[in-house]
């Protein structure tokens, strides 16, 4: 979901940026012709001039250095035009800043400035748009709605794409479908999916009527995002037959299938219209879809093609690759301009780029930003929105590898994002990359390092109020509390996560699943097996309803774990197997390895005669676990392996003590890093018994002491200094 949020935002930003970029050129046209006469003497000559400026914008997009381009305007454009540009530039900068770190903006201060600006220049309607953005960023629904309507009432949406000549001759009609598109996205942002869908449907209809293909493409993309992000279990009655040819022939599709059809349509449309950015973001959306969905035949009659019911990682990679093509295409396109409005004015954005990032890098003062800075200052620098899109493809890569189970690749991609794209991206996206990196640290290096990194991240993203950073902190705290046996603390943290999940502005399904998953785990840690099973079960039902298949695999695994811990290994087996099959069809290799491990543990607990089978299962999964697994998983695997050997009656400790001792000592080291007292105690217990059998009394005592230490720590969790206690 993080990812989905993120990609959606990308698209919003792109569209907004695109609109904004194109709007800048000719806002004299804001006042409809009818009103020109009111201010005729001055206004009249403004019209041809702005036309002229359009042309300049179109022909000289990036090749000219900004100063030159500006100079070209000055001689024949009079004083007011220059001030207009300045105001526009200011507004543009503010809009960028709003998008980047929205909530850190002071609502009232900026509103005051805008109001002043409006007072001075009532015909500059962009101010209303900025006011809309401002109130949107601060979750002021009514103000946002009001300003959005006001902006489009005044501007008639014509400034948005007014250089795109309408397909059917001259069109005096305003471009109000853009207003619908924005309204739909606003409802989406505020968490009103039903209304958003209604409005976007209307946008589709109006765009079709007016044959505004560009807007239609964007609207379709927005609908795709809406469907993929929000757990809509049923679109019947909202989405009309105009969306896909299939619904019109009376075949009812599930939401997912509908989404797929829409995505395909949207991609095709964007490609045929040569909307590069939209194509790229559609590819991203497609990749996201492929990542978590098994492709099925849409039509269930006719000769059944033999389908293997698995996700296709190759498709995901292909889509990601295709979306990254944007950056190269952008280089080629810079000289021959298409009618795509955003491109013709994007050069203005570059005008501010060096300045903006210089300030940023000063503020950050960290070495990693140097690269990004240089990257932006390159002579043929790339517009920010393109950078954002490319950046998001890296984030998506990181997520994809996270799911597929390649820790190093996930980490590399997140690192690339954090080093190269933080300047171009919004702060919440940058926070996401940091979150990924810190999670990685926590899993592979233990909590100490993770919390140190978290501190840095917190300082960096201090301004972002509803950040993922807070969620990450809660996650880490919960994880750590569980490991150390602070069940009360774990419960407390878990409850806080639950509160975050039931936020007022729409429910974040991802967070909601996470919260209840953690709730179940806390219950399990407290040995309340039936309650844990009940929570997990209802969670499974929810995931099933909203088609969250990847989460299903996790939940099933948890259920298997619950049964294993409660001593019902036989009951646990089917869950583990089901989880395995889910993992297989979604290519979740790491999760699969962990499910295999659980399966092995289950077999092992059925009796020593299954030890062989368990051992072979573990050894099958070991390469994956050792290569990509975190500390906990590795330790568990080691312990399980040792246990298999120990319970095998044909295995003699005295002959082959290394086979057991080596993994156990490795596990003990890793578990101590994690401060996972329970498992550590178990390890030391096993070690002590082995040493006892070997007759090495000194080592035995040592292990026994360590065992005791961990047991004590587990029993009295509150004794030690806990620097993290005060963070809550």
């Amino acid at each position, binding site marked *: 979901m993080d990812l989905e949020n993120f990609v959606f935002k990308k698209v919003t930003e792109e569209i907004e940026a695109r609109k904004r970029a194109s709007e800048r050129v000719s806002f004299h046209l804001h006042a409809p012709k009818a009103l020109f006469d009111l201010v005729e003497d*001055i206004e009249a000559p403004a019209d041809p001039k702005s036309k002229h400026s359009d042309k300049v914008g179109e022909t000289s997009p990036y090749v000219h250095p900004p100063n030159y381009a500006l100079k070209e305007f000055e001689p024949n454009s009079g004083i007011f035009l220059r001030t207009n540009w300045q105001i526009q530039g200011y507004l543009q900068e503010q809009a960028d800043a709003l998008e980047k770190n929205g909530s850190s903006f002071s609502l009232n201060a900026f509103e005051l400035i805008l109001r002043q600006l409006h007072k001075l220049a009532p*015909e500059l309607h962009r101010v209303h748009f900025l006011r809309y953005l401002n109130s949107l960023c601060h979750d002021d629904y009514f103000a946002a709605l009001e300003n959005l309507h006001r902006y489009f009432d005044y501007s*008639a949406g014509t400034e948005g794409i007014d250089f795109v000549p309408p397909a059917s001759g001259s069109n*005096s*009609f305003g471009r109000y479908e853009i207003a*619908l598109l924005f309204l739909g996205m606003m409802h989406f942002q505020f968490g009103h999916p039903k209304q958003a869908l209604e409005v976007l449907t209307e946008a589709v209809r109006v765009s079709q009527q007016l044959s505004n293909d560009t807007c239609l493409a964007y609207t379709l993309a927005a609908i795709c995002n809406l469907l993929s992000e929000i757990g809509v279990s049923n679109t019947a009655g909202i989405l009309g037959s105009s969306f896909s040819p299939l619904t019109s022939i009376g075949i009812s599709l599930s939401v997912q299938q509908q989404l797929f059809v829409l995505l395909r349509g949207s991609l095709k449309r964007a490609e045929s219209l040569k909307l590069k950015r939209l194509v790229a973001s559609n590819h991203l959306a497609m990749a996201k879809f492929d990542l978590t969905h098994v492709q099925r035949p849409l039509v269930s009659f006719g000769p059944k093609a033999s389908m293997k019911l698995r996700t296709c990682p190759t498709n995901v990679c292909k889509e990601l690759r295709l979306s990254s093509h944007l950056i190269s295409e952008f280089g080629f396109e810079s000289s021959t301009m298409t009618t795509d409005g955003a491109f013709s004015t994007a050069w203005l954005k570059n005008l501010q780029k060096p300045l903006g990032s210089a300030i940023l890098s000063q503020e950050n003062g960290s070495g990693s930003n140097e690269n990004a800075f240089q990257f932006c200052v390159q002579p043929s620098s790339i517009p920010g929105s393109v950078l954002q899109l490319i950046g998001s493809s890296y984030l998506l890569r990181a997520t994809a590898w996270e799911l597929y189970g390649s820790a190093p690749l996930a980490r590399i991609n997140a690192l690339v994002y954090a080093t190269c794209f933080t300047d171009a991206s919004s702060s919440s996206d940058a926070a996401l990359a940091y979150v990924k990196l810190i999670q990685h640290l926590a899993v592979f290096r233990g909590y100490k390092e993770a919390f140190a990194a978290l501190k840095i991240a917190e300082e960096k993203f201090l301004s972002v109020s509803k950040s993922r950073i807070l969620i990450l902190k809660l996650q880490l705290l919960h994880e750590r509390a569980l490991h150390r046996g602070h069940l009360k603390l774990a419960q407390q943290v878990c409850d806080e996560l639950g509160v975050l999940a039931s936020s007022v502005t729409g429910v974040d399904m991802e967070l909601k699943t996470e919260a209840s998953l953690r709730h179940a785990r806390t219950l399990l840690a407290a040995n309340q097996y039936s309650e844990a099973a009940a929570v997990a079960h209802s969670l499974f039902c929810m995931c099933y309803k909203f088609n969250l298949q990847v989460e299903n695999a996790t939940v099933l695994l948890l259920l298997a774990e619950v049964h294993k811990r409660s001593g019902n290994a036989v009951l646990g087996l089917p869950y583990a197997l089901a989880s395995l099959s889910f993992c297989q069809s979604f290519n979740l290799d790491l999760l699969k390895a962990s499910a295999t491990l659980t399966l092995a543990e289950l077999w092992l607990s059925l009796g020593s005669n299954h030890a062989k089978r368990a051992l072979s299962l573990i050894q099958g999964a070991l390469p994956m676990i050792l290569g990509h697994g975190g500390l906990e998983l590795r330790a568990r695997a080691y312990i399980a392996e040792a246990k298999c050997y120990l319970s095998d009656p044909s295995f003699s400790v005295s002959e082959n003590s290394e086979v057991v001792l080596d993994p156990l000592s490795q596990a003990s080291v890793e578990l101590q890093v994690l401060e996972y007292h329970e498992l550590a105690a178990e390890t030391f217990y096993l070690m002590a018994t082995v040493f006892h059998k070997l007759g090495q009394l000194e080592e035995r005592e040592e292990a026994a002491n360590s065992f005791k230490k961990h047991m004590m720590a587990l029993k009295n969790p509150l004794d030690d200094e806990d620097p993290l206690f005060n963070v809550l």
Partner: protein
Amino acid sequence: MNSKESCRSELRIAIRQLSDRCLYTASKWAAEQLIGIEQDPANFTPSNTRFQWGSSSIRRRFRTNEITSTPIAGVSYVSTPVMEEDDAVDGDFYLLAKSYFDCREYRRAAHVLRDQTGKKSVFLRCYALYLAGEKRKEEEVIELEGPLGKTDSVNRELVSLERELSTLRKNGSIDPFGLYLYGLVLKEKGSENVARTVLVESVNSYPWNWNAWSELQSLCTTIDTLNSLNLNNHWMKDFFLASAYQEIRMHSESLAKYEYLQGTFGYSNYIQAQIAKAQYSLREFQQVETIFEELLRNDPYRVEDMDMYSNVLYANECSSALSYLAHRVFMTDKYRPESCCIIGNYYSLKGQHEKSVMYFRRALKLNKNYLSAWTLMGHEYIEMKNTPAAVDAYRRAIDINQCDYRAWYGLGQAYEMMGMPFYALHYFRKSVFLQPNDSRLWISMAHCYETDQLRMLEEAIKCYRRAANCNDREAIALHQLAKLHYELGRPEEAAFYYKKDLERMEAEEREGPNMVEALLYLATYYKTQKRFEEAEVYCTRLLDFTGPEKETAKSLLRGMRTTQSGFPSMDVEHFSP
């Protein structure tokens, strides 16, 4: 009639004081009210021809227990002598300054009074400076108007005026007129709360300055601010409250106040016009028309408020009366915004929308914040199918006054015309929020819900129900409710509403296709309910109409007769259409 007398004498003094201070509008207003006070029969002189009012159809109440709200005599009388003394001191300079002022040479007037310290002189000097600044500002606006509309021109005198007046106020050496000016300056500078207190001070110590009251009223946009004002009980307060109520759309309260005031100011044209305004808001067009006819008879060269009359004439499609009115105001003063508006309405009714737009635009050139001209221009653009221009015009009206439900409604219509019903709903919602008792708005909103694109019939039903509860003149709501319920498969509700509709049509003696539809539905409905007597009644009524329904009714009747005469019911099923 002591209180009438006292009002009269108060006003007489006030008029002199106001015109002495060049507060022309206020003195004009006061003079109008003075003449508007009903004559005692004892003082009645035959030369007073205004008595033809008595024959008018306008409701007027002659109350005997009037003006109970002027108990604090001190308030109304204290301030008068204080200002008289000034005259003796700076009389000559003052006379010169006032002459200059009358010739609109404001700076010169201020200069003459530069060393005068009397309160009256100080006020006139400040007022002259203020007006000089305003004049310059207006000129600048026209001279410097940039492509972005307004320039940043402000009244340059405001700062110095504020400084001077605030020191005067601190010293306590400020009179009510000075306070009024101070309030004006503060309001212009945007410090509304202080402006409100200062203006309240001003009207409490000198209540006859209508300018101060109207400034105060423009600062009271909600009932809460209005209630929080600490005002002395003077009869002028009733005028203020009546006008303030009107502004915040409490029309019936406002109407009640005006009717009460009419007890004293029985012949006040101002009150007549305000009552007309309130009635207009309550959509009592017939009464408005009568009032304006009376007004025009008494005051044939009146232009104020006449644009509303033209709106009423337009709505009632009285083209000849509108033409007469338009020609009259054209001859009186064609360059007043109201005149332009009336002429615009006239052309619109004649179907010459381009010309009409031209006149509305002229009205707006004369007064950029002329609310109804923006709205009416929007209507014209709608007629001309130029929706973007209409949207723009409406939006400007809304930005002038958020509460103009007509503009919101117009925006909704415009967007609905463009095939964006869902988007339009936002605007309709706004308009019904502001004017919840107007059935037309509810019907339009319901219609919007009903469109093929939305088909949100449940919501449409809710809207129609609201419309039916309001005074639905065109009787669309009931019919639509019946139809919608029928479509949604709720025969009982449908029958209920058809019956209501039928009753209504009977009461209003209307006939037509709706009548036939209702009768036919009710007949078949009662037949399926096996309530044959009722069904028969409706069938026989249907026989009075010509057309295919007559035949249907006949066959229905036949079918019922056969059932009742003992045939097995199965046959009836077969034979009935």
